[in-house]
Structures are given as C-alpha cells and as structure tokens.
C-alpha cells in the first residue's frame, strides 16, 4: 500500500469487504510459495521460514489486498525436544490424544497481523532452534515490535538481529536465564533475609552461585 493509510468507514469499522481465508492464502502463497498454512478454530496460521519473515511481513503490510497495517501481537512458545504424548480417555472426554514429538527443541514466535482496512486477522509463525535462538527483527517493518521483541528476548532468549535496543524489559537487568522457557528451573529465588540463611532449590544451584 502506498501513500496514505486507507480509512475504514465509521459505520462498519472497515472500508472494504473482508477477504475469505482462501483469498488470503492464495495471495500470500503466490508470492511466497514455500509458506504453508492451516486453519484451526476459525483462525488462519501461516508457517514461514525465518529467512522469509521480514519479506513476508513487509508484503502483508504493503500489499493492497491485505493491507495489514497493524501488528497486533508477537509472542513466543517454547517446545523442547522430546516425545510428549498427552493421553486422554477418549471414551469420557471424546477428545483425541495429542502427540508432540520433536528431535530439536524450538521456540515458535507468532506474529498476529491485523488489517484494519479489511477487518482481517491472521497469524504468521516462525520457529527457531532453542539452543541458539535467533530471528531477524521486524522493528523496521512494524515499529510496535520493539517492546514485543524485547519481551520475547527477555522470556525466551531469542536474539532479534537488527533490533535497536535488545535489553530485558520486564525482568530485572541482571536476571539469569529466560523464565518462560520450559527448561527454566522453578523455585529458589534468593531473597536477602537479614537473619536467615537462603537455601536455593537443587535445580536452581546450577543457575546461580550460592552466595554466602
């Protein structure tokens, strides 16, 4: 989209009729054939390669058909390596068992894009290896990603290449570890009691030196 932002009408909140998911998928996949998609519970998700991320988001923003001017959300989820099967008694709940099996642990980052003009919302998911998580920063495309990327860095340790100020945002500056990772040990946050001795939990000892 070039020039001015197109204004939605006051009556409906949108200016143009919304696009069906098929049309969105077609629009995206003609330009990015490698991108896969799924529709679950009425939500459209694209799965992309991190290398394509900046190009894909720029396309969604600038494309006249999609016109996704708002990056609504950006959040991470950690999926560690291993075979996790959650079995449910299908006879009582009727819900299928869920199997997550991964050779390599990943951190998935989901970018929720909104088109004010088209009244459209969909998600772009990219995954990065959890041992050395790195993704390109999208602050050049959407400035709002600044705080979001800092939050994902803070919680998951994903380093966003090209971010202007990649620091911790919610946790204290000297915090050790990234607390939303599933391998982050719980418990044993040391508090300086004056007349008491602090004993960290066994898992925690590997993270932080025990201070006398």
């Amino acid at each position, binding site marked *: 989209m070039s020039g001015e932002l197109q204004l939605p009408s006051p009556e409906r909140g949108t200016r143009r009729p919304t696009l069906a998911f098929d049309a969105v998928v077609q629009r995206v996949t003609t330009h990015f054939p490698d991108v896969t998609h799924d529709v679950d519970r009425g939500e459209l998700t694209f799965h992309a390669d991190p290398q394509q991320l900046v190009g894909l988001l720029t396309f969604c923003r600038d494309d006249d058909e999609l016109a996704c001017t708002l990056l609504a959300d950006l*959040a991470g989820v950690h999926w560690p390596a291993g075979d996790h099967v959650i079995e*449910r008694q299908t006879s009582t709940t009727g819900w299928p068992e869920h199997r997550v099996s991964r050779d390599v642990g990943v951190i998935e980052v989901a970018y929720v894009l909104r088109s004010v003009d088209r009244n459209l919302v969909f*998600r772009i998911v990219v995954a990065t290896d959890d041992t050395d998580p790195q993704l390109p920063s999208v602050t050049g495309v959407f400035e*709002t990603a600044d705080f979001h990327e800092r939050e994902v860095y803070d919680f998951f340790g994903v380093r966003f290449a090209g971010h202007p100020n990649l620091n911790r945002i919610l946790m204290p500056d000297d915090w050790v570890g990234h607390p939303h990772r599933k391998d982050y040990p719980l418990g044993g946050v040391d508090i300086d009691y004056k007349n008491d001795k602090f004993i960290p939990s066994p898992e925690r000892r590997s993270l932080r030196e025990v201070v006398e």
Partner: protein
Amino acid sequence: MSRDTRVDAPDDPDEIFVDGADWEQVIDAVTDETLTVNMGPQHPSTHGVLRLVLELDGEVVRRLNSVIGYLHTGIEKSTEYRTWVQGTTFVTRMDYLSPFFNETAYSLGVERLLGIEAPERAQAVRVILMELNRIASHFVWLATGGMELGSTTVMTYGFRDREHILDLFESQSGVRMNHAYIRPGGLAADVTDDFEERVRALIKLLPERFAHYEELLLRNPIWNDRLRGVGVLNQERAMALGVTGPLARAAGLPWDLRRAQPYCGYEQYDFDVVTEDASDSFARFLVRLEEMRQSLRIVEQALDTLPGGPVMVDDKRIAWPSQQELGPDGIGNSPEYIRHIMGESMESLINHFKIVTQGYPVPAGQVYSAVESPRGELGYAMTSIGTNKPYRVHVRDPSFVNLQAADEMSRGHQVADVIAIVASIDPVMGGVDR
C-alpha cells in the same frame, strides 16, 4: 551554615553558586548540553510504578525512554501451573482497572479452544459488566489524569462515581475488583435478583455525572491549555506503533473490535464508535467522555433484552459443579446441591472432586482472542497441549503497547506536558508489567 562554607571557599573560580545572582553564568555554562533526568518509578504523577528517563534540552524533551517491569509478577508464567479455571483468578489481576475484560478475553479464548459457547444470558451479563467496567475505568483515568494535572476536585469526583459501579460489582461477584466472576463457559453464578434494579439506578445516575464532568472540564481554561495540542499522534503513526483504543479513535480511526469483530453478542446492540480528529490529549478526553455515554447505551439495551436461562454451559465435563445460592450472609453453597452430592449421587461427588481439584483437559491448539478493553485491543494468545493446564498464555496488553508511543508524543514538549501525555495514554502498570 552551608552558605558560610561556600563563601569561605572561593578558591575554585569555575564554581557556580545557584543563588540567583549568578544565574546568567549558570545558563551560559549549560547551553549546549542535554540533561538526563530520571522520573519515577516512585512518583505520584507517573501513573503507577512507571519510570521515565528523559533527555532534556533545557525544559524541552528530546527523548523519552520508558523503563518498565517494576510491577512484573509473572502472571503469564503462573497460569501455566494452574488449571484453566484458576487462570481467571490470575488474569483478572493484570489490568486491575478492567478486570472483567481480562476475564472475558481469557474465557473467550478457552471457550474457543474447547469449541463451546457460553449461554446467551451469560454473554449479555458479560456485556453489561464489561461496559460498566469501561465506565469505571474511564472514571479512574479521569480521576488520576485530573490529579496529575493538578485538579484534586476531578480526582475526588472520579473515584466517588466509580465507587457506585464497584458497589454493583461487589453485589454480584463478592469483590470490588479482581472478581474472577466470568469463567470459561459462562459465569461463576447467576446475577442477583436486585441486579436489574441496581443497574437501572446506575443508568439513571451516571448521565448526570457525565454532564458534571463536561460542565467542569470542557470549557475549563486550565484543562484546555494543558491538553490541547499536546501529545499529537496521527493515524499512521498510531498504526505503526500498534496503538489502539481511545488513542487511535482520537486520531480519527474508527477501529473498535466490538464493531469490527463482535464477540459476546455486541452485534445486537446499537452504539456509535466515537472518533475525534484532533489527535491530541484533549481529543482523547472527548473520546473517553463520549465512550462512557455509549457504554451506558449498550448497558441499557443489554438489560432490556436480558435473556433468561442458565449462565453456565450445560456440559458437566466443563461447568463448575458447585452450585451457589444467595443466603442471608452472602453467596454460599446451595443446600440442595450439597444434599445431592452428599446424599444421593456418589458419581456427582466424584465429578465434583475431579473438576475442582484437577480441572478439565482442553483440546490442543492455539488461539488468539481479543476484546476491546478501555485501553485498546486486549488479546490473549493461548496454547494448549491437551492438558488441564495452559501450555502458554501470552497477553497482548494495550497499555504495554500504547506506552511505546509516549516517546514520540513527548518529543518537543516540556516536562510538564509529559505528565499530561502519559495521563492521556492511561497506562495501567499492572497490565504493562503483568
């Protein structure tokens, strides 16, 4: 005393004494310097534990850096270790001025994961409570914003009027704030018999109060001088910075999720999406003032058409088993239900225990559910792996995102205007830091 020591030590010719007589020297010495000033986190006019680091050129702000995290309580992480129902108790504490919005957005997400929908009565009650909550939240914005600009009168009025609404919340949920009343699948309990009467009383009372504010502030010269032309943020910049809610609407963008992507049956109600064109702090004041009136319109319509029926889904695998009843000493267990599980049905007792202690599993998947909170788009990105606890809950809090605009809005303004600008953003630190 200190004066004497300074007079006695005239050895350093460059030393400057700021006592008025040598003021010319002082300003000569600092002409080409920027000064970095820390404001907060403990400061009455920074709207909670918000810390601002300002780069000043004289009195003019060159750069503003918001430092947040002082109220971080790890709510997102905590929800991963509680059942889906217990999650409502946590999320309601994030943006503590709009608890019903947090609960609704969370519940809508869980409901979408489960593939269920709350009964119509529950949806309508949610709408009534949310809209009243929006008014209460805007009252606090007016109160704190007014106080930050030096008007303690507005502060007392705002908190006084908010209390009427909180009284209603207390009568329905038992608590003034942090209700955990809206649950996945519906509501914790049905509204009380005097609910309609109480809401009608509010519908009668509040318009008078809105008129009061208008009378007090609309043509108030101080209010106008402090807000007009301050903190301008146009539409394009608002979109780029992810700014939603009254800030975007004050820039002329009629974007409201209640209208664009209705939830809880908002499509049935007739209301206007309020917009202004000035894009400044005063426009935000006007938008919020009018929004309160529109909210009351919605409340009235929802109350007129309030359907009967249950307030919780019928599915015994999901619905909270305990039945509440209003007794003489407040809400308590229903004697009939206690008789049923203790005397009649062993299976009901087992089900009760399983649901209460273990919760229910939620099918695997990922959803993003968003509602229009008083501050903008409040989104919950939730992931389930099919267990009785969330795998990950991420909250897109509008205060967190909108705060990013403070830098751009403040540049070129004076320090005193920063206060007005932060007040016009209306960030709630409980939501920012989560």
